[in-house]
């Protein structure tokens, strides 16, 4: 880069008298270097990302795909037996897989929908002129900064059957103790609570940033037209946030599809079963159980690729929806 700027300075200062051939060649060489620099430097600068992506993203992705076509055990990762698509076809009749898929979907819905709605509300509140607004903005982000492990451990205690605080509070209201971990819906609700708690603030800040980019005159003219706060929110804020909302939907959906840490740790020390009835075993957890508990790398890889394909489908659906929405508005 520095050589480039030097080259720019030199010709400008040069006198206008006719050039001797050596000087011409020198200049020619310089400007060639300069052109190359401008042309290739950006690639060099972005290269580290792509190198890391190739090493830690693309290669594992492709290798997992290769492994998914084999029977491989963690006890002998180099002995691969070709089984074709069997690891995929067996998923169709694998009730643990379908159970995990169903759980992932239900936990995804009951964690993502409230999470984004609450985030929108919180962002709307934070958008007002507030005393100590910086404090509140940092405060909503703190759950995001806590580790999953620490947070989940606390939630396990909160949702404890015998000595949990949630059951204590319910008891004060006269309701019987709930065995949160053993019920299908109760355990999924509890896991979703952790997700909602952790990610709401993060999404709220994204919404807030987008809200601050909305030109104030839109609100002014809406107010002049007699729109109430709620109408302003519905007809100015939400439409302006549409791209952001779509973005958070995509990111949250990806997160929900890969939900892993929370349900794993919600099970305490009892491994990746997701409860005695697999009632909160997500796809990520089932993948982990097959790969790192049962040691079947091939089967785990097939689950990983299935998850990836599901994400691509969701991505495509999202793209179609956003295109339809855009057409609708224009």
């Amino acid at each position, binding site marked *: 880069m520095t050589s480039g700027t030097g080259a720019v300075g030199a010709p400008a200062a040069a006198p206008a008298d006719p050039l001797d051939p050596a000087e011409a060649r020198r200049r020619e060489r310089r400007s060639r270097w300069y052109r190359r620099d401008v042309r290739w430097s950006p690639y060099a600068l972005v290269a580290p990302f792509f190198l890391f992506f190739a090493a830690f993203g693309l290669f594992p992705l492709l290798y997992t795909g290769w492994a998914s076509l084999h029977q491989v055990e963690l006890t002998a990762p180099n002995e691969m037996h070709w089984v074709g698509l069997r690891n995929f076809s067996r998923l169709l009749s694998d009730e643990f897989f379908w159970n995990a898929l169903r759980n992932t979907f239900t936990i995804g819905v009951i964690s993502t929908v409230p999470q984004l709605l609450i985030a929108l509300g919180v962002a709307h509140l934070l958008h007002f002129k507030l005393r100590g607004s910086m404090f509140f903005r940092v405060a909503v982000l703190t759950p995001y900064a806590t580790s999953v492990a620490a947070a989940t451990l606390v939630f*396990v205690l909160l949702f404890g059957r015998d000595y949990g605080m949630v059951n204590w509070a319910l008891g004060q209201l006269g309701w019987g103790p709930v065995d949160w971990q053993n019920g299908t819906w109760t355990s999924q609700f509890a896991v979703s609570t952790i997700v909602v708690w952790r990610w709401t603030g993060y999404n709220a800040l994204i919404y807030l940033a987008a809200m601050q980019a909305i030109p104030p005159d839109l609100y002014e003219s809406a107010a002049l037209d007699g729109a109430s706060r709620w109408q302003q929110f519905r007809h100015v804020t939400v439409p302006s946030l549409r791209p952001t909302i779509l973005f958070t939907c995509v*990111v949250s959906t*990806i997160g929900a599809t890969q939900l892993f840490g929370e349900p*794993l740790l919600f099970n305490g020390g009892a491994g990746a079963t997701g409860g005695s009835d697999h009632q909160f075993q997500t796809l990520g957890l089932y993948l982990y159980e097959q790969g790192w508990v049962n040691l079947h790398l091939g089967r785990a890889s097939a689950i990983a690729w299935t998850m990836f394909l599901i994400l691509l489908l969701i991505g495509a659906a999202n793209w179609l929806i956003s295109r339809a929405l855009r057409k609708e508005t224009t």
Partner: protein
Amino acid sequence: MRIRTRKRGPVRVAALAVVAALGASLLAGCADDGGSLDSASSGSSSGGSGGGGTRTTLTVGVFGAFGLKEAGLYDAYMKLHPDIEIKQTSIERNENYYPQLLTHLGSGSGLADIQAVEVNNIAEVTATQAGRLEDLGKVKGVDKDAFLPWKWGQATTKDGRTVGLGTDIGPQGICYRKDLFAAAGLPTDRDAVGKLWAGDWQKYLAAGERYKAKAPKGTAFVDSASGVMAAITGGSATRYYDGDGKVVYKSNPAVKEAWDTATSFATHGLTAKLQQFQPSWDQGFANGTFATVSCPAWMLGYIQDKAGEAGKGKWDVAAAPKPSNWGGSFLVVPSAGKHRAQAAELAAWLTAPAQQATLFEKRGSFPSARAAYALPAVSGAQHAYFGGAPIGKIFAKAAEGTPVQILGPKDLIIAQNLADVGMLQVDQKGRSPEAGWNAAVKAIDNALDQ
């Protein structure tokens, strides 16, 4: 905006795919991060020389609070061998430690010079990884006859290579609360308590019925049905595999009997419906909600931690109905290590009777070296927290009465699914024993199918 997006339609799809892939891999990375509770795993492989110039650094990879370091054994060895420096890496839970160990063995890198292996994994390690491990049977200082024969046999391959040296074992007793027993009208003296159920797990169940009839409010006889299951299966020679290495848990009468007895505890309402090693189980110790628990030697320290000051003088330990074993570990030396000879020497020293006695004295891990049982540190050992119980004698007797158990590569998976799926459904969800058994079998079938 619109024009541009139209023009770049296909590009956007591609971009979306890349973004999805990227997001997927990134999030997967984060998730892994949250999941593993590694306390400290630098993963440093066998290193060259340490700070002291020509000193050789040996690394020991363990899981949990293994005790070797805590008992001061490394320091003692370094004092004896000034040219050796010992470093330890530890991963909190075996379920995270073991897959990593397999990965490292498979790739031949990232290994410590000595690695610990849990007894539930030793059959698989011996069967599939022996080629990547050193034969420790003929190392200088290793005395086969010092070990319990079954412990020695568990880490010995069919062609006679001994790839692991036993550290501790888990002979079991029954830990019980004297105050709760007194309140329920049961004897409290440990010999009398032992006689209550001597020789038969059904008598343990009968004692439970007696306890229940006059139980102090809010307490149960035993912590969990799966704890009873683990204790009973730990005492039979054939468990999940037969001598030919075939999976036989479905038809093995010993397993069936253990299952029936343990589920009776649940169906008769004698359990506190807890799951072991969960926060709620710890709270049960702290609040004294159950009167007995099957306790291997290594669990005494755990109970002392969790029951704390409030439980002091209330706990005692009696002999179990039948001798049985739960848990224990081995040390192996990977062939990929740089200092195999020194590592083997260290492993031999760490598992020698005198050091095992020290480990028992300091940490409560019961020796697998029977030569240690005669040492005063073991034979005279009493546990102050458990009313001065002669734990050296109680556990030595259980250890010597335990039959040689046939282990199999997937013992852990079978045991886990029987306990955490099947028995837990019966105990906590009130399912019938048949429904629980079927659920466990289904999960095990799926888990064993490659």
